């Protein structure tokens, strides 16, 4: 269980607390979104939207968000899913035309490696798209935000065992998709 931070009393939303919440959690939210979505502009929009929704929720219910991190990441997950649904077709089309490998002829070692890494990262992104939203969610939380398995379980309201299995399947699916791409 994390300490106070995720349980900040957001009852009376004073600006100091809000600013603190923003500064504390924005990177996590952004990384989470960016793990699942490549386009930086979209990531920025979604991350920003997450916090605006926080305000709306606070205004509506007079506060009482008990687990701020959970709420933020959960909202981010929903927005990402919405986005993916809306843009699934368009994106898949785009991926078809995106060149897979632009064999950069790097002079030294570093540029070559960088290019290689960039290519691999794109491979991973593409593979991720074939996972279920839950699978993407658990991987984003584990790898982009480095949450422990217990935290993920708490965020997803599932047992630790269930999350371990979910993670197991997510990695299996990822590996499969990567292997498919390698062919």
């Amino acid at each position, binding site marked *: 269980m994390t300490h106070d931070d995720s349980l900040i009393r957001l009852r009376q939303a004073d600006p100091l607390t809000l600013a603190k919440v923003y500064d504390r959690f924005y990177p996590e939210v952004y990384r989470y979104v960016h793990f699942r979505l490549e386009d930086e502009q979209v990531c920025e929009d979604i*991350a920003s939207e997450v916090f605006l929704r926080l305000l709306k929720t606070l205004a509506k219910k007079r506060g009482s968000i008990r687990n701020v991190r959970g709420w933020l990441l959960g909202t981010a997950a929903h927005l990402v899913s919405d986005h993916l649904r809306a843009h699934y077709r368009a994106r898949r089309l785009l991926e078809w035309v995106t060149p897979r490998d632009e064999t950069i002829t790097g002079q030294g070692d570093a540029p070559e490696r960088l290019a290689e890494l960039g290519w691999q990262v794109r491979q991973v992104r593409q593979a991720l798209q074939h996972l279920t939203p839950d699978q993407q969610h658990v991987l984003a939380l584990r790898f982009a935000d480095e949450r422990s398995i217990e935290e993920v379980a708490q965020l997803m309201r599932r047992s630790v065992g269930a999350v371990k299995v979910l993670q197991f399947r997510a990695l299996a699916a990822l590996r499969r998709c990567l292997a498919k791409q390698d062919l």
Partner: protein
Amino acid sequence: MILDPKAAALEECLKWLAAGDSLTEVLGRYPQWADELRPYLEAALAARLLAVSLRVPDAAKARGRERFLTEAQRQWQPRSRGLGPIGLQRSLARLAFALTLAVVALAGIVLASGLALPGDVLYPVKLAIERTRLSLASSPAQRLQLEQDFDNERIGEAEKLIERRRSVRVMLAGALSQTPAGEWHMAGLRLILPPDLLLGDVKPGFYVELVGLLQPDRTVLVEKIQLREVKFSGQLQAASTSQWMVGGIAVGVTPQTVVRGEPAIGSEILVRAVRLADGGLQARSLEVIGIAPPTFSPSPTRFSAPSSTPLPPPTNTRTPSGGLPPSQTPAPSEEQEPSETPAPPPLPPSQTPQPTHTLSPSETPPLETTLPPSQTPQVGDTPSASETPAEEGDDEEERTPTKTPKPSPTHEPSNTPKPSPTPKPSKTATSTP
């Protein structure tokens, strides 16, 4: 379920991987599942690769932050309820919210602004802080000192700009000097004066302020230049034919100095002076704005009005320009308060330098048309920064126009009346030949 132990083993492996163990090491701990687990761990490494490639752009964060805080403020705006106790409480809470928000937004700005250079986003903030300090000065002398400090700060900034080879519009103040070759210099910088530049009474040997384009070759392309005017008020403590002591500050008096009213020791005097290159002050005008008690003793009462009514003094205590022929004074300054009107100065009667009339001895360059270069409030980079320049801008406009020192006409009334009041109760100003 058969998955559970493997899933648990996988989680253990992931922890070790995250801790920095190698893939072989980790798999070595589960020899029975090594082959089976390997693809999962490879996938995990791929996911980690993606994760480490993620960057959180500062600009995006800053934009979102501003949006968030702005929206937060908007959301706690009034909901148009009556002004019952609840409404009142609400508006108070709102006010507090807005104030705190401003503080949050400003945090850190003040410190950062101290390092700002002309052209920087934070530069106007720096100037605003300086002006605030000036307005808080407790005496004319302290104010003059602060002004000097800030002038030096400007010179320091110019040096840094030159170092960085940045060409920026700057405001500078300093003693003007002239080389034998006829070049004008100020603070080690060569001034380039366009032929059509209005010089007024600017000449070497005086302290001037200017706006111009600073160039890396240590020259300044001057756009505007004028004498630094200093204005303050205080009690007349001593006077000779060449020097008055007002509020603890010595002021040189010349035949051109205009004296209005009937000065006596203890009178409250409004001094308008220019600075000489050596730092001394040379009065342009000395105006009695509060009358003195008969003797130089700080009496608690101060009756101001009576004598300032236009009762003609027998001698030419006032210079001819006291009559104000319009032709003589081309620039009607807004502070040319009619000296004859019985304006009882609301001054407490203390004999010490009294800064009551903080009449700003010309603060940062008072050319209202030439605001500091980096005036445009740039929204975006840092959310906080974007707020301040705007405020600052308002402030700027509000303050600068207060005193536009206009070149005072060289009063040459041919008879050169020099007032030299001796410390007598009544006005005994004589005209020296």
